[in-house]
């Protein structure tokens, strides 16, 4: 289950797609990894795009933070790997 080492981008690459869901900028949002507890900006997450959607993993421990899939008329987000996300709402 180890992800390939260099085959990822980062949270910046997912930000356009996530802007269809979140009104505030996701890249600067601070999130806590539910697995290791590290706090990082979403931009720092490792994002794997070789899927119908993408998977964001913790840059510290590789645990899955968020899964995103768009199929036709629906968007599915699974984010139990994130304890929380804090957005700058200004």
């Amino acid at each position, binding site marked *: 289950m180890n992800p390939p080492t260099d*085959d990822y981008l980062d949270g910046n690459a*997912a930000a*356009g797609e996530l802007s269809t869901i979140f009104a505030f900028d996701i*890249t600067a949002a601070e999130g806590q990894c539910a697995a290791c507890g590290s706090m990082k900006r979403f931009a720092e997450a490792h994002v794997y795009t070789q899927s119908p959607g993408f998977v964001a993993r913790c840059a510290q421990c590789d645990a899955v933070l968020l899964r995103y899939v768009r199929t036709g008329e629906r968007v599915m987000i699974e984010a139990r790997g994130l304890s929380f996300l804090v957005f700058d709402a200004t």
Partner: protein
Amino acid sequence: MTWRVGTIVSVHDETRTARSITLDVPDWPGHLAGQHVDVRLTAPDGYSAARSYSIASAPSDIKRFEITVERLADGEVSPYLTQEVAVGDPLEVRGPIGGWFVWHPEQTEPIQLIAGGSGLVPLMAMMRARAAVHSMMPFRLLYSVREPDAILYADDLRALAAANDGTAITYAYTRVAPKDWARPPARVDAALIAQATWPASQSPTCYVCGPTPFVESIATLLTAAGNAPDRIRTERFGATGDVR
């Protein structure tokens, strides 16, 4: 954020494989230096593909910005953007995107920019933004590039260096260096980081953009040189940039 239709108002080949495209977007809200846009192409049969491209131009009040696209041999979008598009063509864009990998003119710390290949694009926007507001904040750019012919914005970079007003540029050639260049072609290493970047004691903010292996290597070198991880901002790109 929704898709908007812009109009191509100019195209300019930067190198044999990279082209800058200026877009006029009527309801464009303006951007910050370092942000990117998504570009979407849709085929007559409805198939669409989207890719992210950094904005190369400085923020401005006019509803216009420039992107620079590097052609990937097996790309789905970049061959069209670098070879087919013409002035007057419509182009669908979404953005501006990203509020973390950005430089604000209000920042007062020294700025270290490190680019790998076309990772220069968002960093160029930061240097152009600095020049546009006549900032005296000291910038350093370390630009890792394959060979002299692959340098983006070569004239602009020469002019920035010649202006001698606080932007210092170091080139690191990885495959072919100019004749009589002191450093043989090689990747950026700890010695070059020590020689060409701000010492960590100056607490610079570092912006690193390039392909994933480049960014990982540079971030490791910067951290080893004593830079705090939270002062290192990174943006990775690659052929897998399609998130749709």
